[in-house]
């Protein structure tokens, strides 16, 4: 390896490093340019897959990713930031909506949920999209870990009644997990609040215009 000896050498060394940085960065620009469309499509498919896990794809015909609304209600939706609501329609008839609500009272921070509710106010599906709950304990809210999250299907504000929209330990109908009550309690609460929000705002949810403008078909 060469060793810098004179002042000229030191300068050359500096330029060499700058050149290397320039070449490296340029290569990254090329790789990024190539990858960008693939990554965008992959992320779109991941989102579509998770939406289809809470609203059955045979129940709607619209482009659900392009039929989006933002709403805000810190108390019922769990965040002071606006959240997204995806609308599913069969032709023009509203079928269901998927709300990206948050349970702020998880054991270890926010639990991000996707709650699918059909037009009549019944749950079509719930999924925990992102969370930091304890592995092996609270993570039973994940659908791959346990079928617990499916116990919300078909429930509504009247089934069960308000007093029973809690975990069994609090006098309600929903199971908790052995060794983890806080996590299921948070999720049950958030799903219930999503149902309440939906009932109060159903017209707004389905008639408000789309806020998303993407170029995907």
């Amino acid at each position, binding site marked *: *390896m*060469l*060793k*810098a000896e004179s002042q000229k*050498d*030191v300068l*050359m*060394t500096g330029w*060499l*490093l700058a050149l*290397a*940085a320039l070449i*490296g*960065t340029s*290569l*990254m620009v090329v*790789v*990024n340019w*190539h*990858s960008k469309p*693939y*990554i965008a499509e*992959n*992320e779109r*498919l*991941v989102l579509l897959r998770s939406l289809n896990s809470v609203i059955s794809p045979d129940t709607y015909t619209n482009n659900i990713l392009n039929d989006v609304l933002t709403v805000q209600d810190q108390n019922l939706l769990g965040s002071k930031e606006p959240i997204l609501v995806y609308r599913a329609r069969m032709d023009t008839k509203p079928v269901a909506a998927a709300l990206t609500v948050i349970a702020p009272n998880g054991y270890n921070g926010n639990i991000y949920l996707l709650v699918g509710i059909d037009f009549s106010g019944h749950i079509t599906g719930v999924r925990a999209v992102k969370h930091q709950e304890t*592995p*092996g*304990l609270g993570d039973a809210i994940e659908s791959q870990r346990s079928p617990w999250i499916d116990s919300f299907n078909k429930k509504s504000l009247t089934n069960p009644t308000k007093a029973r929209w809690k975990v069994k330990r609090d006098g309600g109908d929903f199971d908790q997990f052995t060794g983890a009550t806080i996590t299921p309690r948070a999720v049950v609460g958030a799903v219930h609040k999503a149902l309440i929000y939906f009932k109060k705002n159903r017209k707004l949810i389905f008639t408000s215009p789309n806020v998303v403008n993407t170029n995907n078909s």
Partner: protein
Amino acid sequence: MSDVTIKNIIKQGLWSKNQALVALLGLCPLLAVSSTAINGLGLGVATLATLILTNTVVAVIRNWIRTEIRIPMFVIIIACVVTAIELLMSAHFHDLYLILGIFVPLIVTNCAIIGRAEAFASKNKVMHSALDGLMMGLGFTLVLVTLGIVREIIGYGTIFGNANLMLGEWASVLTVTIFQNYDGLLFAILPPGAFMGLAVLIALKNKIDRTQEERKKVSDGIGVSFEINKA
């Protein structure tokens, strides 16, 4: 400097200088991602690809690197290679990319990579350096997969669970469920379990090495006394 031969490069990468069991480098990603066999395999392959590429590039330009800036040069090369791998993985193997999460960009911090660039690739021919990258990467991957299998059996009761996410739908045949309805030993999945698992593997390797040394001593001893008798 030791003999740089093909045989030595292979032996060192897989065993005598195994980065995970001997040099103890790259432990952060190793311990975090080896909770299942497939995760370990995924990270292992990404690390292997990185090692081959960075060792090759460093060896190609080794005669033009000024020694004063060699460390920042290595860092630029490694960071670019890993960034490229991350972008290409997200573009073409997105499900695996989601599983490996933050650990793909963290390959940059794997000291084994800059370690080999400094210790080997900057001083050896391109072919040898590429082979060293391959062998070191393979050695690392073997430890990742072994640890992954052990932790997965104890922690989840399966082997190669979710294989279809990395290798395609056909791979679901690889998934073996050892214990049905197994609640799993949580310890194995969390970091302390990883430390314990790695410790056991290192201890095993040291035991094997020691046993081999003893055997060699005995056979050498017999050889010497035979020679003495002959004389």
